[in-house]
């Protein structure tokens, strides 16, 4: 499996799409996590994101103390969708280019090829989380310095918890993307269906369960995105001191249950992908 992992890492590292996705993650994270709130605080203007919020709360959200919730705010939805695209690209492209045949005729077993791919996705999503935290920590530090505020970063344990949670969320979404890539043996359909699920279906079910049909809550509480949002909520209830919780960050289940559910999803997606790859012919 080590050989497969090394091959997958080389492919992901040299693939322009990987870097484009990382750039989009970082860009959106900066935009919604720091640029909009801080510029709103500077100008005193209210925008869609900051309307009705305490200005001091806006500043607190971009300072080092709120690094974890600010960094993870976009993970349940838009960063999750981008991780799903990464997973779908990594698995589905192998069928589009016919390279699954190349991988499966070298040495590793099918399960080893699958395991190598998932490990490489796990490494890539960890890299995305770490780079996001590093950049955000730098930006928060710069803002704190400019605003003459103390550089009070979260403790190492809190940071590790935040990085671990982010990694679990992105691992789950990229695992779903890879599973869809294996299932549909391509990229377009998995990306389309996956993004519709993350951005549309989960939000609709959540909205209906929260207002119109509360009997749907048990269903809502097992959805992967809802569990991702609940995990982030558990790290900073109410969205932290920065104000309202970002879209998808929700108080639906406890942090412990959310962590367990996400871990189970990761295992289930990996097992289902392995089963598909193992049983099917590669033509």
């Amino acid at each position, binding site marked *: 499996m080590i050989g497969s992992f090394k091959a997958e890492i*080389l*492919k992901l590292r*040299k*693939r322009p799409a990987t870097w484009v996705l990382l750039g989009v993650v970082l860009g959106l994270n900066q935009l919604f996590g720091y640029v909009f709130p801080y510029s709103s605080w500077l100008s005193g203007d209210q925008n869609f994101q900051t309307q009705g919020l305490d200005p001091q709360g806006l500043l607190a959200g971009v300072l080092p103390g709120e690094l974890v919730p600010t960094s993870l705010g976009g993970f349940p939805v838009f960063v999750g969708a981008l991780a799903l695209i990464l997973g779908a690209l990594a698995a589905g492209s192998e069928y589009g*280019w016919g390279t699954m045949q190349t991988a499966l*005729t070298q*040495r590793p077993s099918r399960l080893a090829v699958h395991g190598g791919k998932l490990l490489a996705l796990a490494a890539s999503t960890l890299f995305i989380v770490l780079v996001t935290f590093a950049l955000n920590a730098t930006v928060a530090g710069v803002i704190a310095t400019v605003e003459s505020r103390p550089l009070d970063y979260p403790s190492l344990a809190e940071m590790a918890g935040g990085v671990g949670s982010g990694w679990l969320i992105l691992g789950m979404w990229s695992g779903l993307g890879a599973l869809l890539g294996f299932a549909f043996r391509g990229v377009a359909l998995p990306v389309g269906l996956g993004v519709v699920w993350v951005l549309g279906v989960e939000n609709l079910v959540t909205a209906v369960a929260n207002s119109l049909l509360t009997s749907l809550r048990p269903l809502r509480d097992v959805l992967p995105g809802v569990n991702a949002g609940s995990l982030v909520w558990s790290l900073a209830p109410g969205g932290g001191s920065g104000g309202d919780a970002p879209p998808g960050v929700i108080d639906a289940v406890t942090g412990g249950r959310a962590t367990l559910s996400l871990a189970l999803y990761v295992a289930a997606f990996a097992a289902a992908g392995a089963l598909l790859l193992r049983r099917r012919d590669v033509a």
Partner: protein
Amino acid sequence: MAMGEQLVETNDLTKTYGALTAVDRVSLSVWRGEVYGFLGPNGAGKTTTLRMLAGLVRPTGGSASVLGDQPGSPRTLARTGVLIEAPRFYPYLSGRDNLRVVARYAGVGDRRVEAALDTVDLAGRGGDRYAGYSLGMKQRLGVAAALLKDPELLILDEPTNGLDPAGMRDMRALLRDLGERGHTVLLSSHLLAEVQQLCDRVGVISGGRLLAESTVDDLLGQAGLLVRAEPVERARDTLERLVGAGNVAVADGSLRLRAGPEQAGRVSRALADADVVLTELRPLERTLEEVFLEMTDNGRTER
């Protein structure tokens, strides 16, 4: 050639897709050190058979063994180089990086990459993106990937596809060299002259069925002689006395003898002694193409 160890063996290997039988009870064997040609028209079942031998497709019936193990097992794959149908690589990577990816999967060092690129004459273009390669360059990169492990067995599906005449000549030389160095090669090709030059034995498949498997010489049949002479009747009587009545046939005003070229002198002398005017005497050989078309046309007719 002397038969030794069987590297590939199939017994009633079958693959069906719904109602379609792509490969129908194929039993073939490839021996260590031989270059085996797998012939058949388009859609005959060649590629499906090779895919089953590479472990990409699971048979629905029968069995196959490659290098003494199950097709597609890590132990088998580690000793087998495969190029099936067309080379499949990552378009955004260079040729060299594509081989590095393959080397990592195969568990061989990067130093083999340069040697493989060199072998297929791509060392100078190894840094170019694969997407920009010509068809022939892609094919050569596919062969380089198959050679990366220095495999005991090579399974090559149409390895000269897309190559220009010089590239085909080089590929033939490479395959011949591999055969001489003791590698076992199982190759499918439409280019029958190429197969006739390269292969020790051939299997002919049509409609999913293996129609024949033998050495090229056996498949072509015994060499013969073509004789044109006047008068034909006297010539036939003379030659029947010389080589036996069952070994002479008349077709299109000429006589076809089942006799080797070394008999030409005796034939000429006997006809002269019988006052027969000899106008043409030459070896009569069927080409592999003639035999192949004859067999596969019969196969089609039977279906």
